[in-house]
């Protein structure tokens, strides 16, 4: 049986160019990831800054033997944002679509479908596979049972599961970082750069609940799906995706590699993850068909 791949998903937060360089240098040199996504997914206003950094990082990661995937915007709106999606989709690299805007120009060429595209059933997965989808990262809401059913029906597609990180739960055209600071999206002053994992959102009773990241809303809890090799194989999962956070992602990658290789147990993996500096408690309800906020096993 093929080894289960380990993907470092696209960074969802607004990090400085310097921080991006340092982060991906570490990923290139030391990490267990075999595939790394680069590119802005959340906000087109961040692109003029990060777009300057990606070309050098692509070269560096490829030189280190990583497969690079170029991720595209989840909610392209302006002509410039749409143009950027179309340009990336015409690129020779493998690309990730996070909205159907890029699909017409990419049809027939291989692509990755991100978890923000609604693929909830075998029929939707088959439809995209027929147009060139090579990997589909399942929507975060789906249970392991549903994922297994889709994977069994679509054996020519690589099924990827969102396995680590704050869950990307919602998108809006409104920027919540700007709203929180009394600003509008068009004059946001890039206040989201202050929160490398998004800004915590608590209930009126002080209970950690969600996190805001520009136009995106994430879970406060950090989703952690750590299957045994047998469980992953039974559901025909071919890749796990870890979503970048400010914690040590190289160690997080090692923890997942070890559990996928059967070197450690899921319980040991969860215990090691809890030793990292995480932005929230570990949750895993979605995988079990429960509410996404349900805590992972202690």
């Amino acid at each position, binding site marked *: 049986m093929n080894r289960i791949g380990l993907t470092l998903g696209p960074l969802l937060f607004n990090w400085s160019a310097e921080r991006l360089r340092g982060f991906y240098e570490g990923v290139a040199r030391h990490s267990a990831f075999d595939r790394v996504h680069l590119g802005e997914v959340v906000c087109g206003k961040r692109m003029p800054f990060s777009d300057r950094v990606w070309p050098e990082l692509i070269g560096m990661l490829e030189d280190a033997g990583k497969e690079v995937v170029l991720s595209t915007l989840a*909610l*392209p709106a302006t002509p410039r944002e749409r143009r950027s999606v179309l340009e990336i989709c015409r690129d020779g690299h493998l690309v990730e679509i996070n909205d159907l805007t890029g699909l017409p120009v990419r049809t027939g060429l291989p692509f990755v479908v991100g978890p923000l595209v609604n693929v909830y059933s075998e029929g939707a997965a088959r*439809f995209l596979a027929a147009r060139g989808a090579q990997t589909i990262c399942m929507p975060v809401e789906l249970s392991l049972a549903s994922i297994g059913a889709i994977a069994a029906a679509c054996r020519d597609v690589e099924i990827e599961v969102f396995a680590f990180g704050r869950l990307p739960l*919602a998108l809006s055209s*409104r920027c919540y970082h700007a709203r929180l600071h009394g600003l509008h999206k068009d004059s946001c002053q890039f206040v989201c750069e202050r929160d490398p994992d998004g800004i915590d959102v608590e*209930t*009126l009773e002080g209970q950690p609940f969600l996190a805001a990241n520009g136009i995106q809303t994430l879970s406060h809890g950090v989703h952690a799906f750590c299957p045994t090799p047998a469980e992953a194989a039974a559901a025909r999962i071919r890749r796990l995706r870890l979503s970048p956070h400010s914690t040590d992602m190289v160690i997080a990658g090692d923890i997942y590699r070890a559990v996928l290789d059967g070197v450690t147990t899921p319980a040991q993996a969860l215990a090691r993850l809890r030793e990292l500096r995480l932005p929230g408690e570990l949750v895993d309800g979605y995988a079990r068909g429960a509410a996404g*906020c349900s805590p992972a096993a202690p």
Partner: protein
Amino acid sequence: MTLELVCPAGTPSALRAAVEAGADAVYCGFRDETNARNFPGLNFSAEELHEGIRFAHRHGVRVLVAINTFMRAGIADAAADPWKIALACAEDAGADAVILADLAVLDHAATHHPGLRLHLSVQAAAATPEAIGFYAEAFGVKRVVLPRVLSVEEIAVLNQAIAVETEAFVFGGLCPMTEGRCALSSYATGRSPNLDGVCSPPEHVDYAQAPEGTTARLAGFAIDRFAPTQLAGYPTLCKGSFVAGGKTSHLFEDPVSLNAAGLVARLAKAGVTALKIEGRQRGKGYVAEVVRTFRAVVEAVETGRDPVEAERRLSSLVEGGRQTSGAYRKQWR
């Protein structure tokens, strides 16, 4: 210029009320998870739909059937697939169009029900000419219900770039999140719009009364707090009051409803074909009043009169009394 008024029918009696109040079209769904308003006491059986369509057609009113959730994985028996059954029932009942969101449902409809007119639901979140063009080309979609992320100016530009009709929400409940791309409800409760056709479902709602006021909770999370003198609102997750960065606020959206009556003339000029009123969960009295008043707005706009009187009546019908024009004005963002 003629604007089509598309009105909600959560029940057969609301359908009749909307038809009699001046709707050009009504939309409704089946009593199961195939539509995004899957709430107890709402929606239609196959027989009720047949009868509703006969009634509407006698009055020259079209019926659009919303089958706008996402097909579940792992349905072993295709003959028992609720989405496929819903498509067949809608066609059989003589629906004028079906409103779909899911690639799997669209693909099945285009392949097996070529006679059905397809509209793209707001839940599909198609907001660019490229995405809308894709749905038109791949499935023959004839109309797109616009995601609530676009300003009026952007809608005008979009309509220049696409070959299909557009339908825009003008009144009723408003999601600040892009519809069809929101899992907040399932994160808290396990049930969501995409999977179950529900948001912030009532079985997870709890009101805790204390001397200082009432706390409205959803699945144990405090969503809002109301003073003893205040009417406690429903804890819809995205309209709650939260704490972030040391500030307490309605971070995502205030408890407001959409009222774009004042923008009808501009929406018409932007090339919109149809105006949609939200509210399948509302009673027939409310539906009749809103439809009648919106009919007056449309007639005023079409004859070049000022619809200010009708607009004022609509303000008093807004849920909770607070209204917004949402993303139609860029400052909302």
